[in-house]
């Protein structure tokens, strides 16, 4: 599903160049659950951004689902993202001016799904995640756990092949964190490929494979469990 070859990312600020990723070679098969770990600043989030086509690589190549997406223009990237990738962020990143229903519905709007079908699918997913009763509430009115469940619901509503999660339990207490991990595991069992950045060893234990990053490079890889 995912193949990167010498993937590099350098950030330039005035005259300072910071190498965030320094030649990462990665291969993730469909259906895998991969955890990415490492100290702060090691390039975990940068790797996730490149894999999610949220940012462009400075060097190397990136193949996603058999396509070389390294030099895709932003419009093609956007199309790829909405069809194939779901995102779960640490700080939920729900849009404050939209209700829970509207937040979860958003990917379907960008896909041009008809209204009736959108309604059905959103209600089903909200029900699955046990937040249907909060559909008309705004994010500020939800608990952290509920917000993250809404964010995960948004990430899966379009049935993406790949979910990228950046510290999905970072802002949650242990109980809610467990809930979210249960959801991700369940999605993975259903065939969704998941790549998750985490500081938590407990969360990493849920994954098939753990990559360790340091200073922009993969320095260790724990075998599949």
């Amino acid at each position: 599903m995912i193949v990167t070859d010498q993937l590099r990312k350098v950030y330039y600020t005035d005259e300072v160049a910071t190498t965030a990723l320094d030649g990462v070679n990665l291969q993730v098969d469909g259906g895998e659950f991969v955890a990415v770990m490492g100290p702060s600043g090691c390039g975990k989030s940068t790797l996730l951004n490149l894999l999610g086509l949220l940012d462009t690589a400075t060097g190397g190549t990136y193949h996603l689902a058999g396509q070389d997406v390294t030099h895709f223009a932003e419009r093609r990237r956007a199309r790829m993202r909405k069809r194939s990738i779901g995102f779960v962020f640490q700080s939920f990143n729900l849009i404050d001016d939209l209700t829970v229903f509207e937040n979860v519905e958003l990917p379907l709007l960008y896909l041009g799904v008809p209204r009736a079908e959108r309604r059905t699918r959103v209600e089903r997913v909200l029900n699955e995640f046990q937040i249907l009763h909060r559909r008309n509430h705004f994010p500020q009115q939800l608990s952290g756990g509920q917000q993250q469940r809404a964010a995960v619901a948004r990430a899966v509503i379009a049935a993406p092949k790949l979910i990228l999660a950046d510290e999905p339990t970072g802002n949650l207490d242990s109980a809610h964190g467990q809930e979210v991990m249960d959801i991700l595991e369940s999605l993975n069992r259903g065939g969704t490929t998941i790549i998750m950045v985490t500081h938590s060893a407990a969360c990493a234990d849920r994954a098939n494979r753990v990559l360790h990053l340091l200073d922009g490079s993969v320095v260790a890889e724990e075998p599949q469990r």
Partner: protein
Amino acid sequence: MARVMIYASLKAAWRRLTRHKLYACIGVGGLAVAMATSTLLLLFVRQEMTVDHGNQKLDRIYRVESNGSAVMPPAVGRDLASQFPQIESVARLSYGENLDYRVGEKRGSTGGFFWADPALFSIFTFRFLQGEASTALTRPHSLVLTESLAERIFGNRSPMGRVVRCDDMVDLTVTGVIADPRQMHVSIQALGSFSTLLEVYPGLKAEQYEDEWAYPTYVALARGQRPGDLEGAIDRYYVSHGIHGLSTVHLRPLAGLYFYSGPLLGDTYRRHGDHDLQVVLVAIAVFVLFLAATNYVNLATALATEREKEVGVRKALGAHRGQLVAQFLGESLLASLLAMLGAGAMVELLLSPFNNVLHGHLSLGLAGLPLLTVSALGLAAVVGSISGIYPALVLSRPAPAAALRGESSRGRKGAILRRGFIVVQFAISITLLIVTLVVLSQTRFMRGRGTGFTSDRVVVLQLNREIKRHREAFRQELLGYPGISKVAYSCRVPGENLWTWGAVTIGGKKLPHVFVDAVEPDYLDLMDLKIASGRGFSRRSEEGGTDEYLINETLARMLGLDDPVGSAVVDTGNGDDGRVVGVVRDFHVASLRHAIPPLLLYQHPGSYGRVSIAIDPGHEADALRHIQSVWEEMAPEFLFRYDFLDRIFNRQYQEEARLTHVLTYFTALAMLIACVGLFGLASFLTLTRTKEVAIRKIAGATASGIALLFVGDFLRWVLLANLIAWPAAFLLGRRWLEGYAYHGGLSALPFVSATLLSLILAAATVSIQAIRAATGNPVESLRWE
């Protein structure tokens, strides 16, 4: 899908507006005020620019002028109608006057009364509500009233066939009622048939060309005729008939007449549009919109930091930049539309005070509503698009990853642009402020500058037939009262339209036009006019004219003689040849906008139309009561009306007063919008700097030091705005003052005052937010961060 996205975007936009009420008020409210103001201003300008455009024959109507005069002898109209088949119609008007009318017991004054040829209705388009245009003024003693005057005199009853006694001298019969002609260059309230004029004033020499240059004359050319060809034909006609005073006839198109401001003699019977004022008003309309739009842009881009993550999320979910631009542009259009709705309500409320300030007559009738609605929607769309495009591009620009990290808002470009907008806003407002102060200063200068004559406590009455007949008795009755010191008769007083003589010869020099005034010897004493050389009139003439003439210094200079005293005066308009007996020191007969004209004074009791009465200090009220009682005793048929000489003279400054009002109000508005924008921006920027403030306080900064830091930051930009405004205001002010023959010059005071005021306002605006930021608990700020 587009429709769905639009609906979703608008819903979110509405929620955002209601969540950020302060910024919504500033952005949308500011736009609403600006749109209302611009709508009113542009409606007014449109009204002014379309004066006379309601005439169906507009492109064929011309006013006849000759030798620098806007008014013709009555014989010219007769000649043009009979001798030139190229002309379809000719109509003469008299000078407008106030006619005292009486119908039964009801008395009043018409205002705007003109004697007119019947062909006036063939040339100009009037809407007849009663009567027929083809016959309304054909017979002598006919009277046509405007709808409002007819209602004032007759109420709901029909005025047709009713007899109106005018000036206790002539009976006129109402033969027509016309809709109020608001969009005309002449302010008409009533029209009397021109043929009556010759009957009422038997001395009027209808056949002569040398004098009585007093009748605006209009022609409608036959189709296909060129005015240049006709001008040549008229010139040749008068030359061949030996009438050289009419050898340079000019036909001025009606289309441009309202705004014509050339130095034509006798051109004061009509309304004068101020083209410069229209330019100023359009500029103000554009500026005010610009200020409000930049406020909106500033706030929208400042708030971009709050929306960064949203942009990142939407892009992560699959939105491309075009969709986001459309979303943000939609928000801007919604804000603009809401602003326009608010503006619509404001326009209705502000219509009356607006008409007062600009002496306009705007109204929002049903007839104009469709066009106004379409225009309003168009304006909302334009303003929304222009003010929304930049924020839309800025907000949608960040790459998804950068937006999610919150990095894009840390760029300096946005901050520089926002400050740039503040500078531009204040530069415009300060320029307006300086120009307003210059106009105020000039108006004060003109009112305060010596006019060369005494105008304090001088009452002026317009004479009627009875008072004229018993002139001396009236004078004695007045002088018998202890509080009245002087009484003098004249044809006109300074500030009123003076007559001109077409071609008078003085000292052998033929002069095309001079201003003339018939005055008594007492007039010079009452007005405190000084003799520069020679002497005043030797005696008072009781009946006819005398052979003594006085000229002013300007006329003396024109003659170019070493000593003009003793020069022969011939070819006079009153038929009395004579000699110059003295030179009077120059005094102003018109506004200080104009140079003092050449002036000839002579005695001619038959021409006296005014009596000036000097009242001693402290006796004003009692003296007026005495004057009124004497008037009512000697001329009970005539309404007692009086005015003060200084008010008559200063009435000429109505245009300057109007301009001052306009500039004052709209400068204040511009400043308000700029300050409100500054307030909004300051409140937002202090929020984003709470962490910095907390750190500074922890490091030892005092609250006052931090407040000064904030205030000083903004004041730098306001100071820069002043540096930009000063040269612009200097050029505008100097250009405006060049239109005045007498002005006080451009001093530093308006510039310094405007700078100080702008700095004080800006400091006051920003200090509220600065103090709040400076006195906050640093721990709270850091925790919030």
